[in-house]
């Protein structure tokens, strides 16, 4: 009890510290703006990775539908929140124009005399929640047939589901809602990394609380041994669906955040490669570790978007060799690192453990001890 409370205080103060640091860093002129980009994308991927971990790591359901649910969340968000004044331009290739309007919200906001900043935040939150709920609803629907399937069949069925969703969203008959395969834009977006960090932190906190609750134990029981879990009175279908729906809800929110991050939205990038990317983040972080997924997300995004970019453009650290370090080399190095982790460090960074102050201290204490022995 005492130990876990100590950890909680530690973790919360760590989160608070990070927030303060981010706010300070973002406001210092001259600090590399790439840092802010990495924080934004990293926090979004952290949320999506943790939600995938809830399913794959904690419940033992190997689902590859993450990109599909993100797509649902992203589109719902965009379609709901584009201001009516911009719709005509956005839906310019759709004969019927946009079938959705946000006048209901604008009327309420005007009626309440909300200042623009507040109403903007409000519609963003409504849009995100709607995105999460739509994703959750579809996951419930698809969960009815596919959750009965065993491991790899489930994986391939959810992968297929994501592809189906992508095709539906590109269908021109749905143009008045989805704008067909054309780009959606002009929806409200965030400017600072504080917004996605806050949203992700709240969502991840909820997931952590869930994992540590009696439901979380039931999920882990299903992962460890389905038959024993069932014999202990845990309804498999119900709990699997619950994990699936909750995971998809947060994937939907993550998708909405990703739409904001990208400023524009199209269905094309939400393909299986995106799911694989998130899965690999989960693997690097450690399947079954929330803090692992978070650390891995930030590491992955910083490395791929920032630190290793030099590998593509001929200059990296002290090496200058345009013939070898050309376009695509970064991703080759990256995938080799991933394969090494998958093959030789199968537990990833954290294994199934979580970041904790006691373990942190023990780590150094033991290490010191070792050093003493050596010397």
């Amino acid at each position: 009890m005492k130990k876990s409370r100590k950890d909680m205080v530690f973790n919360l103060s760590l989160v608070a510290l990070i927030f303060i640091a981010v706010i300070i860093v973002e406001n210092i002129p001259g600090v590399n703006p790439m840092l802010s980009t990495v924080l934004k994308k990293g926090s979004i991927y952290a949320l999506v990775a943790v939600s995938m971990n809830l399913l794959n790591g904690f419940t033992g359901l190997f689902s590859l539908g993450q990109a599909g649910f993100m797509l649902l969340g992203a589109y719902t968000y965009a379609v709901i929140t584009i201001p009516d004044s911009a719709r005509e331009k956005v839906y310019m290739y759709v004969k019927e124009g946009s079938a959705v309007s946000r006048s209901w919200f604008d009327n309420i906001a005007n009626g309440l005399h909300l200042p623009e900043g507040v109403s903007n935040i409000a519609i963003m939150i409504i849009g995100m929640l709607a995105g999460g709920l739509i994703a959750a609803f579809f996951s419930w629907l698809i969960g009815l047939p596919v959750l009965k399937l065993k491991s790899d069949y489930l994986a391939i069925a959810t992968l297929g589901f994501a592809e189906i969703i992508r095709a539906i969203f590109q269908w021109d008959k749905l143009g008045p809602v989805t704008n067909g395969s054309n780009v959606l834009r002009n929806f409200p977006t965030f400017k600072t990394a504080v917004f996605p960090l806050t949203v992700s932190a709240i969502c991840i906190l909820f997931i952590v609380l869930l994992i540590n609750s009696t439901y979380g134990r039931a999920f882990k029981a299903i992962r460890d041994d389905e038959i024993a879990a069932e014999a202990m009175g845990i309804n498999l279908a119900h709990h699997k669906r619950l994990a699936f729906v909750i995971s998809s809800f947060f994937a939907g929110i993550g998708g909405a955040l990703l739409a904001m991050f990208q400023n524009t939205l199209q269905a094309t990038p939400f393909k299986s490669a995106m799911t694989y990317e998130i899965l690999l983040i989960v693997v690097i972080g450690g399947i079954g570790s929330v803090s692992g997924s978070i650390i891995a997300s930030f590491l992955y995004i910083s490395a791929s978007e920032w630190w290793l970019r030099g590998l593509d453009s001929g200059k990296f650290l002290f090496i200058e060799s345009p013939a070898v370090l050309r376009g695509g080399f970064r991703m080759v190095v990256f995938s080799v690192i991933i394969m090494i982790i998958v093959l030789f460090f199968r537990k990833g960074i954290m294994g199934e453990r979580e970041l904790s102050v006691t373990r942190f201290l023990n780590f150094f204490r033991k290490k010191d001890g070792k050093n003493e022995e050596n010397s």
Partner: protein
Amino acid sequence: MSENVLRLENITMQFGGVVAINDLSLEVNKGEIVSLIGPNGAGKTTVFNVITGVYEATNGAVYYEDKMILSNHPQGKMKKMYAGTNADKFPDVIVKTPDRITSLGIARTFQNIRLFKSMTVFENVLTAKHMLKTSNVFSTALRLNYKEEENARNETMQLLERLGLDDVKEELATSLPYGKQRYLEIARALATKPKLLLLDEPAAGMNPQETMALTSFIKSIRDEFDLTVFIIEHHMNLVMDISDRIYVIDFGKLISHGVPEEVQNDEAVIKAYLGVSEEDE
């Protein structure tokens, strides 16, 4: 006076062309300890799997506290292949998943220990308490159910103390010695607050001393938790010691039943056991 807790009627379990249980009927009365024995491959575990809903019986019905909880008759392809009897006796089809059976008050242990590998001893037992919770997923995540959670933890602690597992409660379940793992499985089953406990070879792998301890342990929990116990076992000493009544099956068929002495002297039983070993060697 002796009230039925569990009653099987004409249960037949057929996998493809193989009849694993053939027209088996038996009953377990309240407060009794009843054993199910038979040579290897006789279909004992299959009986447990049928009772707990893991397998759907091909034909027959299961009653719990005189209420029909499972019932089936040959359907579809099985209609033609069915090799058993009494195909028309059970018109109803009642199917329940194992968790529903457990929530009725029937808990079980497994022959090949199935603990939750990644969890500690304490968590293993606590997880079994999940079934009894009344709060929904949101209130649990937001910790609005803290009273219930605390109760569950306290009860788990008591249970561990009673079974002598409190000193290892923070250890990983799979790191325990074999015998303790068996006790943990029983503790986990007890955590669901059952009325009927199904034990699948609880003494497998134990030495004579341990087996003796287990015998008295089972008797004591029966009294303490007001249980009825249905047990599959190979250790004859334990069976003879503990059982109020014994059922013997071979090739899925009931070949004998009665109090220990009767069964011990039954020609059919002796033949079944010796016969099999002859063929084996």
